[in-house]
């Protein structure tokens, strides 16, 4: 059983702004990815979801914590061992259009794999392997081989890249926003392909900000906020009975075809000095709630600031993103996860 396991993984990025300091991108994240399992990693921008993918692919080194693959710490891999790791763990990324070099034919990505992983494979055997991989992603070799990237649609390009991962002995696929650039009509084909691969035993980490897509493919769901897990468990439990306020807020904001948002008009706003609008309106009663909600949405969506603001709250008014080691240690502490029901963990409110 090849499981990929994250244990208390944290990552601090050094801020580049004048204020300096460190931004916690991941705060003690732990979970396991088993064979034949699809986990959706859902979060808004700045929640750290892409950082998790990068840590798994060893593109980013965690500040603390370990990632183990088959019980072995992936940080210890180097040389041949690392190459072997990449044979089993591969990533596909958001933008297929920039994953190809436009001056070469698209299938050059396969030649590169052959050069480094299968130098002894004969031409005939190799083309058989390529055709098999293309068949698995429902592409017709005649349609795509020998073409330049601009001659292929986004969906075809993305599927070519998934087929590239399949050429290797891949056990884990990190799929980072793989369908957000695709049109609705081709999107579903890539999703269904992921479902098919999962049934063949592939473990997939499906990173997305789109809740309905995550729900469609995954067995388990992890909701991330500010680098920490706020809710985690079986997909139907998370979507059917969300417990954390943040998960509920996310779900209520998803645009659905057959259900309208309950849009409540904003009340009148007097011309006033800065910041006074909320207080003034609140005297009239109703409009204040909506204004407050607008302000809340504003806060929630500005991850970087909220990270700071929230941590400030956590630290009880002290400067939140500090470079001092002890303060960072406090800032890193994620809210505690509690079991709400079997296979459904919910974080305490921050």
């Amino acid at each position: 059983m090849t499981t990929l396991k994250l244990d208390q993984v944290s990552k601090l990025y050094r801020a580049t702004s004048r204020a300096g300091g460190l931004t916690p991108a991941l705060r003690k994240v732990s979970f396991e990815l088993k064979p034949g399992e699809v986990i959706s990693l859902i979060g808004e921008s700045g929640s750290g979801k892409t950082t998790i993918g990068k840590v798994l692919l060893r593109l980013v080194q965690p500040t603390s914590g370990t990632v183990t693959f088959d019980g072995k710490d992936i940080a210890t891999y180097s040389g041949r061992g690392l190459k072997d790791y990449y044979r089993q763990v591969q990533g596909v990324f958001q933008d297929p259009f920039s994953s190809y070099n436009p001056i070469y034919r698209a299938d050059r990505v396969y030649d590169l794999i052959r050069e480094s992983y299968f130098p002894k494979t004969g031409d005939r055997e190799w083309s058989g392997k390529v055709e098999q991989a293309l068949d698995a992603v429902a592409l017709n070799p005649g349609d795509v081989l020998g073409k330049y990237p601009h001659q292929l649609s986004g969906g075809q390009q993305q599927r070519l890249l998934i087929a590239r991962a399949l050429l290797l002995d891949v056990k884990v696929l990190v799929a980072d926003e793989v369908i957000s650039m695709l049109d609705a009509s081709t999107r579903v084909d890539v999703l269904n392909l992921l479902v098919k691969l999962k049934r063949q035993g592939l473990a997939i980490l499906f990173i997305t900000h789109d809740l309905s897509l995550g729900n469609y493919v995954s067995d388990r769901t992890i909701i991330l906020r500010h680098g920490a897990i706020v809710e985690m468990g079986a997909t139907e439990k998370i979507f059917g009975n969300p417990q954390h306020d943040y998960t509920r807020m996310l779900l209520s904001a998803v645009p659905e075809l057959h259900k309208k948002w309950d849009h409540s008009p904003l009340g009148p706003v007097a011309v006033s000095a800065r910041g006074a609008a909320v207080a003034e309106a609140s005297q009239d009663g109703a409009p204040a709630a909506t204004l407050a909600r607008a302000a809340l949405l504003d806060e929630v969506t500005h991850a970087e600031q909220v990270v700071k603001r929230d941590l400030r709250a956590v630290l009880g008014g002290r400067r939140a993103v500090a470079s001092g080691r002890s303060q960072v240690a406090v800032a890193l502490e994620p809210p505690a996860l509690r079991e709400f029901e079997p296979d459904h963990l919910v974080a305490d409110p921050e």
Partner: protein
Amino acid sequence: MSVSVENLSVAYRSHRGDVTAVDGVNFALADGEIMGLAGESGSGKSTLGNALIYLDQRMKATGGKVTVDGKELPISDSRAMRPLRMTEVSLVPQYAMSALPPTRKIGRVINDLLKSHHVKDRPAVLTELKRRLELIGLTDDILSKYSFELSGGMRQRVTIIMSTLLNPSLLIADEVTSALDVSTQRAVGEMLIEFRNRGYVKSAIAITHDLAILAQIADSIAIMYAGRLAERASTDAIVNSPLHPYTQALIASLPEVGVRHDQVTLTGIPGRPPSLVNPPAGCRFRDRCPFAFARCTQTPPFEEVKPGHLVACWKVSQEQAA
């Protein structure tokens, strides 16, 4: 009718000849209407939006007429269009996130904008600007910030405020919600509705590939395919009883919250839209359409099959006639 577009065709010049990206498009917008314009990438939806405000050097209008508030827009004459931009027609560009200049503070950008449009009573407009900022929960210290100091959602809202500051009759919002998180998406979508309700914009065209967002904010939806309109109807009709096979397939390919792969298997639309360099005669969806028959080799008329519901499909016309 506050806006009407008749038979509009727009072509891109290319070394292989003109590529007609928008081909004989007809629609009208009532006062206070938000129309959604949806389609796949390359369907011509952004070209149509841009044509109503600014034809760049590669583009030319090859026919048609656009009227806003009873006056014809001189869309081919960029110089004559200039005073009408922002006042009559305004655009929130695609990638609005990067539309703000990085070297100037927001307040200065807005000031420059007002100056170049020869706005007489600038203090009044600036007071109004502050009022609108407060309305959507931003404070006016945003004006002394650079664009990179704002988050994506704030930048998007600032661009919408700038585009609507002079109360245009028609606002073209190109993919305004596409690069945003769900909660910001909702805030921006509701802001658009709110601005319409308050009359800051008379009517709007929201261009996006995301039908679920349009279901929230639009009063009516037009579906575009390979440069032509395939269907146009009220939002309710498009979402619940679409008639054109393309619209039906598009709606069927959208996963909804709560739907999982082991319950429902969604299907995509096989094939790709035809190239617009030498488009095939007849219905352009023909090759991907499960219902195509002999007559589809002729171009179907875009006609009203039910009150307010226009479709370009032979099968639908036949069924409605029968």
